[in-house]
């Protein structure tokens, strides 16, 4: 079989095997799932840095089965396979006592198959096929989380499904404008129509990546779904896929330049996402929910970076994408360890368990410093690139990004302090370290953060830069670094002072939460007044009711009006047949008169 099919076929075959595995044996399906993920990793690695093409005719109309592996695709492929393997390994311990484990592995492997297919697809329609197929596993993976998770599953399905439909139109429009569905042959400049096509495709990409306003299912899912799902999809694979496609459309298919309006649109969406989501993350009092808001906020950086349309920004955005996948996945996994061992992710019920779970704590520290942009971890370097590009495009974008970093640092100081430091609570006295099967993936991801930080030149030069055309300056802007350091120190000082004043780490940001003006907005946000999903549904329901009324009015014609008129006419005619001879004569004369007048008219 052609090598390029392997990343699609292998996980699918493994998934089907898992589905067929006998019910009783837990070990069997776990072994199958792990083997599937491992073989997938191997297959992805074997495709790395190769240029392979495949094409076969399919439906006609430019729709064919064409696949292409290039550097960018190979990179995403191997990253996705890596996360797939680590999350599977982690789930062996985490999901061992859950009844839904079998379904979980099945969905996980199918997800890998679909992600690989979407990344390798060269034909836009084929890509949509895999891309939209992810809806099924998304729905399934959330729905198995618990009794009420189906509500979140439906929310996620609706949001992502609607944006996928927009993308479907976008793809058809792009094909119409470019005359082809082959991604590598499309090259459009921004006419108004092409701008519309770009926007529709962008909606699909952003919804997959979880940027605002398509984000609101992620915080819900963080509580409703099984935890490895969060580390796997919203934290890692969906970001990889969404940003991958955003990069593809902005770099290859449309000629995004700093002067084009979609560039400004992307930067505004990015900045808004960074700030709004991080503000929400700041006040969360649940480990997983706090992380989920950061998973949204960080997409903002990637979107902002690509939106700058400058080489440094795009490289920074892509580098941030892979960095984020590593540290956010790692953070979610630490949350899973805490949930499994301490029985809760509610910050009120946690505290001081850092010494009980030293490895988890260490991994958390590394990942938290990465996300906050502390040198020399990976997040620092990608953010510096982004800052430089954002500053070049406008101070306001830089300010948004920098302010976002300040709040990110604040919220992780609060989170780490509240969970791992401070006095240990009575119910947490017996907490143990997580089993090795769960620790290893965390350690691997944390090590990745360190490696990509210390040797950041390696991934940037060998993987990301060849993707992006154009030169960018290596040297870092000293002023920006200084500003970053000041921001981080300010956050630390704020935290220390605040904890001193308020005694508890969990209250460290209360001065922001309860600030005048802000507190009102926060209250409304907590009550979900700003959820775009709810607002959208309300708008739809207005439309729906008017459609329903229109329909009822239409039905009224058939049920009442038409029979009523016929009945009236019938009654009139039957009454006129009264049997009265004089009346009949009258009718006849009237009729004759009409005929005579009609005939006379012609004369």
């Amino acid at each position, binding site marked *: 079989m052609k090598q390029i099919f392997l990343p699609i076929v292998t996980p699918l075959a493994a998934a089907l095997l898992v589905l067929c595995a006998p019910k009783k044996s837990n070990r069997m399906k776990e072994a199958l799932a792990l083997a599937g993920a491992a073989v997938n990793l191997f297959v992805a690695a074997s495709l790395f840095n190769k240029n392979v093409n495949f094409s076969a005719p399919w439906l*006609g109309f430019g729709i064919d089965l064409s696949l292409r592996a290039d550097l960018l695709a190979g990179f995403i492929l191997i990253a996705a396979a890596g996360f797939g393997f680590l999350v599977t390994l982690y789930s062996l311990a985490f999901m061992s006592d859950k009844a839904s484990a079998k379904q979980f592995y099945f969905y996980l492997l199918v997800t890998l198959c679909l992600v690989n297919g979407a990344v390798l697809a060269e034909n836009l329609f084929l890509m949509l*096929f*895999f891309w*939209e197929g992810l809806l099924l596993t998304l729905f399934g993976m959330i729905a198995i989380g618990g009794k009420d998770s189906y509500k979140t599953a439906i929310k996620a399905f609706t949001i992502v*499904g609607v944006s996928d439909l927009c993308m479907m139109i976008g793809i058809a429009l792009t094909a119409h404008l470019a005359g082809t569905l082959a991604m590598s042959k499309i090259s459009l400049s921004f006419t108004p129509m092409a701008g519309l096509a770009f926007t529709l495709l962008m909606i699909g990409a952003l919804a997959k990546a979880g940027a605002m306003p398509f984000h609101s299912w992620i915080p819900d899912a963080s509580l409703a779904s099984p935890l490895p799902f969060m580390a796997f999809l919203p934290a890692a694979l969906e970001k990889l896929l969404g940003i991958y496609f955003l990069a593809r459309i902005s770099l290859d298919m449309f000629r995004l330049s700093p002067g084009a309006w979609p560039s400004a649109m992307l930067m505004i969406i990015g900045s808004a996402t960074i700030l709004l989501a991080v503000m929400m993350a700041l006040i969360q009092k649940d480990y997983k929910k706090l992380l989920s808001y950061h998973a949204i906020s960080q997409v903002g950086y990637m979107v902002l970076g690509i939106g700058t349309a400058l080489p440094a920004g795009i490289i920074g955005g892509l580098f941030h994408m892979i960095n984020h996948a590593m540290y956010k996945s790692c953070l979610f996994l630490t949350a899973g360890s805490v949930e499994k061992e301490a029985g809760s992710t509610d910050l009120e019920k946690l505290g001081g368990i850092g010494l009980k779970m030293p490895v988890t704590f260490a991994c958390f520290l590394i990942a938290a410093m990465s996300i906050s942009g502390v040198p020399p971890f990976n997040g620092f370097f990608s953010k510096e690139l982004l800052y430089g590009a954002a500053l070049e495009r406008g101070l306001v974008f830089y300010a948004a990004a920098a302010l976002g970093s300040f709040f990110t640092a604040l919220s992780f100081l609060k989170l780490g302090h509240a969970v791992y430091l401070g006095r240990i609570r009575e119910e947490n006295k017996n907490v143990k370290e997580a089993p090795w099967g769960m620790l290893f993936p965390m350690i691997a991801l944390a090590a990745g953060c360190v490696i990509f930080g210390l040797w950041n030149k390696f991934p940037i030069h060998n993987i990301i830069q060849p993707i992006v055309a154009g030169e960018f300056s290596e040297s870092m802007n000293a002023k920006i670094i200084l500003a970053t350091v000041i921001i981080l120190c300010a956050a630390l000082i704020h935290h220390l002072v605040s904890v001193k004043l308020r005694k508890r780490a969990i209250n460290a940001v209360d001065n922001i939460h309860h600030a005048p003006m802000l507190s009102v907005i926060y209250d409304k946000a907590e009550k979900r007044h700003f959820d775009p999903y709810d607002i959208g549904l309300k708008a739809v329901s207005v439309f*729906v009711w008017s459609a329903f009324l229109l329909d009822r009015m239409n039905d009224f014609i058939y049920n009442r009006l038409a029979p009523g008129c016929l009945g009236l006419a019938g009654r009139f005619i039957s009454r006129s047949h009264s049997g009265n001879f004089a009346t009949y004569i009258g009718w006849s004369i009237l009729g004759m008169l009409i005929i005579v007048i009609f005939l006379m008219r012609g004369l």
Partner: protein
Amino acid sequence: MNNGVLAFSIIFIPLIGALLLPLAGRISRGLRNALALVFVASSFVLSLKLIPFVMSGHTLAINKPLLMGLNFTLNVDSLAVFMAATSSLIGAIIILYSFGYISHYENQNEYYLMVVLFLGSMMGIIFSANLIFLYMFWEMTAIASWRLIGFFRKDSDWMRADKAFLVTMFGAVMMLVGFIYIYSKTGSFDIPVIRGILSARPLPDMAVLLILFGIFTKSATLPFHTWLPDAGIAPSPVTALLHAAVLVKIGVYVFARLFVVSFEMSQAWYTAVPLIAGLSAVISAGAALVEVDIKRIVAYSTISQIGFIFFGLSTSHKIGVTGGLLYILMHGMAKAGLFLSAGIIEQNAKTKDITRMGGLIKTMPLTALSFLFCAFSVMAIPPFGGFFSKYLVFMGAIEDGSFVLTFLFLLGAILTILYLLRMFKFIFLGDLKIEAREGSRIMVASVVLLAALSLAAGIFVNYPNRLVQMVVR
């Protein structure tokens, strides 16, 4: 067997066979049921046998002159064979399901007679190349459907059946006037002859308008659609038949037969038809989000999806036509699956109100899964079949340059996701409110079969696609 005889048997085996069923029912129920299935299934098998013939690019016209210029003309081409295979396949599965569903009601002889007659007349419409015979078969389906909608014989059932009959009859008579109008211009009822006389000139607008009345009433399109949700009082296999396999597809098929492959319309119709279809799609999707009766929701969903089919067929681009025709197949299978699942649910939960159901996925997992699969197909989620047809319809429309209409239909597609998910949530998820058992084995099997076919049609989409592309070549 000669291909002409094949086409002839496809029509007349079920049509004449139907009349034997009440007699067979006197002898044994099993025999009658088996015969009903055999008659319809033989239509399916025979139409499959015609596929190689039409795939090689051949067509066949059979002409038997009768008195007064009414010629019995049959036309075997890829469109007819595609439609015959689709309808008879779905029809056969529905009959299979009826074995379980209808087994504890009275008047079963009548039921099977009408259902098989219904499908036979459908085959007649499909192969007729003479407008008068088309009209006759068309009215035979109307009579059969009138009888079937009122099957349960309550007063309200009669009212609804009469409504359906009167509305479609009104349209059919308008259509007949349209046919006569064409005759007055061209002197013939035979489609190939008329085509020769018109020679690429468009049909007169008056005729198109009159025929569209017939098509829109039969295919339940705004503003003639409200009989279809009302027909939900019929037994579930019958509603499946009306919605998925036969009745509403007749209008769509005749539209394709007359206005896509045979005649030209003047340019304005290519804007008017999709506009009406779009409004129909959006407004009925809105109504589907308000209704709480399970069968009415699915009925509004049908009206909405029919809009998409018209949208595809009325594009002048062959991508759209391919999409529209594939849509007939994909929607037929998925919608039949939805209706038959609804039948299982309604029979076992003893209610049609979705707000009173919940959590049924625990007691009827197979039905739930099949329902979900069919819903995914209607929503256009890959790898289910509906994904391909919906994409092709959209792509055809965009190639045509009708951007505004595309966004109208995008709204329709979004609402489709909303109402199907809403229905699934209310029926199958949440707390178990009514302890309803799973349906009988044969009913569940036919539903599972339809769900599997919806999936298979997506994975092996190229087989129907190649047949359909013969039509638009």
